[in-house]
């Protein structure tokens, strides 16, 4: 008889291999609230802390206990608690502890500013599998320009220190924006060298789920996204390896709208009990206040996941998908339609491939391919990136660092899509 202590990596790999060809819910993202003390313009879903209507609609602790019990019974392993800001809920630790006692491997996404000694001590007693804090700048000025909350930088750093002093499994990350792009290197050095924790960044910014375009006001242009990416040789090498693998793979056109793990291995539940393919996707929702998680998974999400594409697009036969960040949910947010290509992502993908010296097979009706209207500009930008003419280390703060406020405007939604 044996008890084997398997490293997490082995465990995860083994389980994913075992379920490779099966549809099984393994990972679930639970948005416990959309309320957040910060008012970051780039955020896709934040609501003010004092939004009483939002708070009153949120699932209760008892409703979460029912859902978590179902998720455990269904065999879900990985659980992500995200927001909004998870600690904006006064009862979050109770929900979290209930989940811990069900045996989930839990990751927490937080901005860290509400973490105090009591919360840090509690997490030491009931440690999550991972805690990821998003850092919005390396300096107070930049951080608070993006978050629009005075004092938030110091509170975030305090939260980070409290978790680290207790040896908790902390990671830092950031979102590259026009406000903080010049501090991404500094944030990475702070995380990796000063704190000794992992750091990752992503420059993907989407419109808000209520259709507001406000986040796009701080989105980096494609050239900056790729310049930042390729500044690090490991990221450049990863993109290159993906492109090489894709070039030699026999890829057919995609037949379904969704081609990710959403609805196949994972799904999301929003603060109001709406189940969906992922946290970004809000066009197909199943109300858990009217049905069970199992029914939602077995029937509703299965149908969403099987939905066939209705038309060919330039993405259908694209051969640089592995360096493209688009997906059906991003298309929903950007274009209001899950099948409509996102031109911004298309340009980023072309820039990545061309700057890395990879040949890009021509696509039909693509503005970055031959005769496309963005073709020449894209090639010029790729040449600048490849020659390091645009040096990340020399980037400076935007000329005016005025607070970027979004609260009322961004949260207002479009008013025209029928859902907001």
């Amino acid at each position, binding site marked *: 008889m044996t*008890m084997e*202590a*398997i490293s997490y990596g082995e465990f995860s790999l083994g389980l994913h291999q075992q*379920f490779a060809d099966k549809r099984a819910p393994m990972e679930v993202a639970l948005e416990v609230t959309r309320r957040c003390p910060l008012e970051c313009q780039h955020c896709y879903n934040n609501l003010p802390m004092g939004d009483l209507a939002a708070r009153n609609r949120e699932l209760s602790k008892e409703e979460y206990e029912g859902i978590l019990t179902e998720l455990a019974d269904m065999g879900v392993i990985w659980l992500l608690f995200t927001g909004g800001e998870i600690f904006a809920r006064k009862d979050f630790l109770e929900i979290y502890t209930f989940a*811990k006692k069900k045996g989930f491997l839990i990751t927490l996404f937080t901005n860290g500013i509400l973490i105090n000694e009591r919360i840090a001590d509690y997490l030491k007693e*009931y440690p999550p599998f991972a805690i990821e804090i998003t850092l919005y700048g390396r300096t107070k000025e930049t951080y608070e320009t993006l978050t629009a909350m005075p004092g938030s930088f110091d509170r975030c750093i305090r939260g980070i220190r409290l978790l680290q002093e207790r040896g908790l499994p902390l990671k830092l990350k950031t979102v590259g924006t026009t406000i903080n792009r010049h501090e991404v290197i500094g944030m990475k050095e702070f995380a990796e060298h000063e704190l000794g924790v992992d750091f990752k960044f992503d420059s993907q910014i989407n419109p808000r789920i209520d259709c507001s375009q406000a986040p796009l006001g701080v989105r980096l242009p494609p050239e900056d996204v790729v310049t930042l990416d390729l500044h690090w040789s490991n990221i450049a090498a990863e993109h290159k390896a993906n492109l090489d693998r894709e070039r030699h793979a026999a890829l057919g056109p995609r037949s379904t709208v969704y081609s990710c793990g959403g609805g196949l291995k994972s799904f999301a539940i929003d603060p109001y009990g709406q189940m969906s393919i992922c946290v970004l996707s809000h066009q197909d929702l199943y109300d858990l206040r009217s049905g069970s998680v199992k029914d939602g998974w077995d029937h509703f999400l299965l149908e969403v996941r099987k939905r066939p594409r209705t038309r060919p697009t330039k993405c259908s036969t694209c051969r640089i998908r592995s360096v493209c960040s688009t997906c059906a949910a991003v298309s929903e947010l950007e274009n209001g339609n899950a099948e409509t290509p996102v031109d911004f992502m298309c340009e980023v993908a072309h820039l990545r491939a061309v700057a890395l010296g990879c040949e890009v097979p021509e696509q039909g009706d693509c503005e970055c391919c031959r005769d496309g209207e963005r073709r020449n500009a894209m090639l010029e930008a790729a040449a600048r990136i490849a020659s390091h003419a645009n040096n990340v280390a020399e980037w400076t703060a935007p000329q005016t660092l005025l607070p970027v406020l979004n609260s009322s405007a961004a949260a207002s939604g479009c008013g025209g899509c029928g859902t907001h």
Partner: protein
Amino acid sequence: MQSYVRASSVVSRVIAGETLIVPVRGGVGDLASIYSLNPVASSIWNAIAQPCSQEKIVECIAEEFAGEAPQVEQDVKSFLAEMQSAGLVETVGVPA
């Protein structure tokens, strides 16, 4: 008589037919690891859902897996010691 019982600081789950033990509280086991039990070990784990003596465990395992009692006793003993040192099993009562 001394009995063995699952530690209250861990929780077990059966995923894809395999019993996994996941630490709930800090300081128990190795947080970077998942503990996986083979079928015999899973039977012992099931037996100690409630406090259970080593003798009783040996009896159950020898019967379920048709093993020779002395060998089973040796295996059970070393398994329980291993679980105990990882903080996954607790003892109640006093040793005989």
